[in-house]
């Protein structure tokens, strides 16, 4: 049960968001997620187009994240993959993918955002990775 005060706050934010969006002519989905910095919202905004809301990817074009052995095998590299993108062939669950993943810089996602979205991925769709990735880990990642 949501307490009335909290509900009012939420509705206020929703209304302001709606008005702002109408004024700017933005898409609804873009509006309602922009104030929410949780891992899931960030995932839906920045990752789900290619990897899917269900994390299943798309054919052999976009690799899955759900149940992907690649995530566990490359834990230390994950922050750099978000920051720098990925180019060239990789193997996920025995399937070869050879696409191009765009880089996401700190002007778009903070170190904390990257940690949040990675932790969301690592705990969703049956993924059960041990230990959280911290914002510090993201900022200290030694990317090539």
């Amino acid at each position, binding site marked *: 049960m949501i307490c009335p005060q909290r509900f009012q706050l939420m509705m206020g934010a929703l209304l302001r968001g709606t008005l702002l969006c109408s004024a700017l002519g933005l898409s*609804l989905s873009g509006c309602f997620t922009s104030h929410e910095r949780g891992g899931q919202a960030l995932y839906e905004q920045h990752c789900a*187009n*290619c990897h*899917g809301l269900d994390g299943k990817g*798309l*054919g*052999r*074009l*976009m690799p899955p994240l759900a149940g992907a052995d690649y995530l566990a095998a490359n834990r230390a590299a994950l922050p750099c993959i978000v920051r720098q993108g990925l180019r060239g062939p990789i193997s996920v669950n025995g399937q070869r993918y050879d696409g*191009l*993943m*765009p880089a996401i810089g700190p002007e778009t996602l903070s170190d904390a955002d990257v940690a949040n979205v990675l932790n969301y991925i690592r705990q969703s769709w049956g993924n059960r990775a041990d230990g959280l990735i911290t914002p510090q880990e993201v900022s200290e990642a030694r990317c090539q």
Partner: protein
Amino acid sequence: MSSSFRPTVLAGIGAALLAALAACDRPPNTSSRLLTIGHYDVIADPAPDTVWATVPPFRLTDQLGRPFTNAALKGKIVVADFFFASCPTICPVVKKEELRLWKKYRNDPRVVFVSHTIDPRHDSVAVLRDYAERLGVANSNWYFVTGIKDSIYALAQHYLVAVEETPGFGGGFTHSGAVALVDTRGHLRASLSAGTDSIAPAPVYDGTRATDVDRLIVDVGRLLNEQFPAKK
């Protein structure tokens, strides 16, 4: 043509959005014929009438390097979209949604799917072939076509799909995730969004929205019934 095109599409998108918001749980109206939409001329002779535009002549190449012309669409119901292989934004969403429709009609010779690249410089025949194979639709009624850019962009105008080259943004191109439905005569067709009484239909189907693609799946069936009536 382009100056009058844009406001129409924007108004249509606005109308579609309002309609979608206004009518969340009313069932779609499936009893009437699909509307004919798009560009048209009005003639006075021999009687006042509306003459709907047909697909302009085109000469493109498919993912296997074969010529792809108007002949490939003749007598077919066409599901058309515009994309590019390196698209990092909405294209994968549209493709995922279109796959639902394709799985239903993959073996139906009356239906063809055409994905036009809006980045022909990058999307060679080999790139498109690889894309089709990786999507899992190679060797089917789904064509991935490339060719002269102006020719592709003219087709997009006919299909009421907004496309534009925008260096440095969203992979270098801006386009809507619209999917067009074309009947056997080359006329653009669409239904009203669910529950709306407005005369302004969604200009085409928004391939990024599952509800729009649900409507498209229903409408392809309606169009097949209209254009290929069962023999009595």
